[in-house]
């Protein structure tokens, strides 16, 4: 398995505020990696630096190609699907239109892709013409995920997929993420507040602290070190 994504020495800023300072990380093909840390540590910004929705500097390579100067439209074409926090769906459009947009950068049969997506989210079929904004929070998060799957990404960037959802729904979403990774071989970079669930899903994790990588290691290592667990992961 080769390296799919490499970040090294990445800085990012919002106006005057520097959000990332020399962040470096890697994601192998077919791997699930978690980014953990407190609020404001730069987790979301790391994802945004990859997809090109924040001003950044440094080396960002996807399968050996630099994406450090590319905007989100181009990054999407190279196979990165970014599901942003909260509003991952077009709530004004229907479920089916959301899915069609997921496949926007791809050519080929929508029907074939949809059949594949419906294996993970069988309930979508019956709700195709429903307006996305009228779905429940959990359903909207799943729709955002389904839309990303329509894109057939090599790398899936997920920002807080569990935010504001009931535990049962969270469990279902994480089950689907693992299944996607397992069956499609999609690499996943996962940002989460919920450290315990993330460490159970991911093989490796990075812990960010005020815009820097404070710790990195396999999930087992991080979970087994009590000091890290207590001060950074909060459980």
């Amino acid at each position, binding site marked *: 398995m080769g390296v799919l994504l490499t970040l090294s020495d990445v800085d990012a800023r919002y106006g005057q505020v520097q959000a990332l300072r020399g962040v470096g990380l890697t994601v192998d093909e077919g791997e699930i990696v978690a980014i953990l840390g407190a609020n404001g540590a730069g987790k979301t910004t790391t994802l945004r630096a990859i997809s090109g929705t924040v001003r950044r500097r440094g080396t960002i390579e996807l399968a050996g190609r630099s994406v450090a100067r590319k905007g989100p439209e181009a990054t999407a074409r190279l196979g990165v699907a970014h599901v942003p926090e909260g509003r991952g769906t077009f709530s*004004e459009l229907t479920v089916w239109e959301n899915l069609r947009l997921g496949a926007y950068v791809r050519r080929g049969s929508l029907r074939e892709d949809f059949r594949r997506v419906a294996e993970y989210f069988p309930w979508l079929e019956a709700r195709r013409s429903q307006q996305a904004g009228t779905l429940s929070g959990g359903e909207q998060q799943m729709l955002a995920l389904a*839309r990303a799957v329509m894109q057939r990404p090599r790398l899936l960037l997920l920002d807080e997929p569990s935010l504001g959802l009931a535990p049962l729904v969270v469990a279902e979403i994480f089950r689907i993420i693992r299944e996607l990774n397992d069956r499609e071989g999609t690499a996943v970079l996962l940002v989460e507040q919920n450290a315990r669930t993330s460490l159970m899903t991911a093989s490796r994790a990075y812990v960010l602290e005020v815009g820097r990588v404070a710790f990195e290691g396999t999930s087992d290592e991080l979970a087994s070190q009590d000091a890290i667990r207590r001060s950074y992961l909060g459980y």
Partner: protein
Amino acid sequence: MTAVVAALERRLWFRPSTSWIVPAALVGVAVFLVVGSLRSSLFAQQTISGLANGGIYASLAVALVLIYRATEVINFAQGALATFTTYVAWQLMAWGLSYWPAFACTLGIAFAGGFLVELVAIRPVERRGSQITAVIAAIGLLILVEGSVGWIWGNQVKFMPAPFPSHIYNVGGVAFSRQDLSTIGISIAAVLVLWLFFRFTKVGLAMRAAAVRPQAARLVGVRVSWMLSFGWGLAAVLGAVAGMMAAASPSVLLQPSMMDGILIYAFAAAVVGGLESAAGAVIGALLIGVLLNLLGSYVSWVTPQLLLPVAFVVMLIVLLVKPSGLFGRTRVRRV
């Protein structure tokens, strides 16, 4: 019928009001027009020619809505651009093309023109300034385009060949002009084609996504800035349709200021419809077209000079009763 209405409300850019008042009022107006037309042939004729005027306003109003929805800019140059493209059609016919080939070429030229105008004149301004700056740029564009029409083709009135031989149909004592009927038909067709485009094509869907959520649209790979240029192109095509229909109408003369008044009616129609709703703009335009025509022929003191103020009074009344327009959604802003 109710199923159709429900489908429209869900799928179109049809922002339903929660109250039943607007639909009820529209049904009332429709009943009034039908009953009136059955009782009086003059009333029927005036209603039809009002609908024809309304069709012209509707095409231009939908063009305004199209751009407003994407960028919240009112394109005051829409009328001038329409005039320009109408002159292009006139020029093509003067060079010997017959009407329909010239019509088709003009639509293509209009698309390219609208696309370029966004790219060259609006995008740089909007990137550095705000929507207000872009609106001011549009007003500047209005003056520039209208001036260049006069400069290129002169300020004398030109004669535009008619697309259809003039003909009057007589149905049960009511005379319908073929001109009016075809104007209604063409404007309905233009709006319908546009709706199908937005509903069923990939680019149409991407344009809607870019309008409602530009950031999310970029993340799925939609090139949002191209979609905006594309929207200006489509708006210019609708404007060209409106301009050519207006020039064919016996009451409008082909001159540089041809669309000035029509733009104001279209603007009033778009505001009445709620500015964000294409269906609302069409209904608003038809209402204004019919109302002005009926007032002009039945109320003796409403002279042609008074029609413009009357349109504004209608707009004002609608906004006083329902500030978001007939089909506008009420904006909730979280602080």
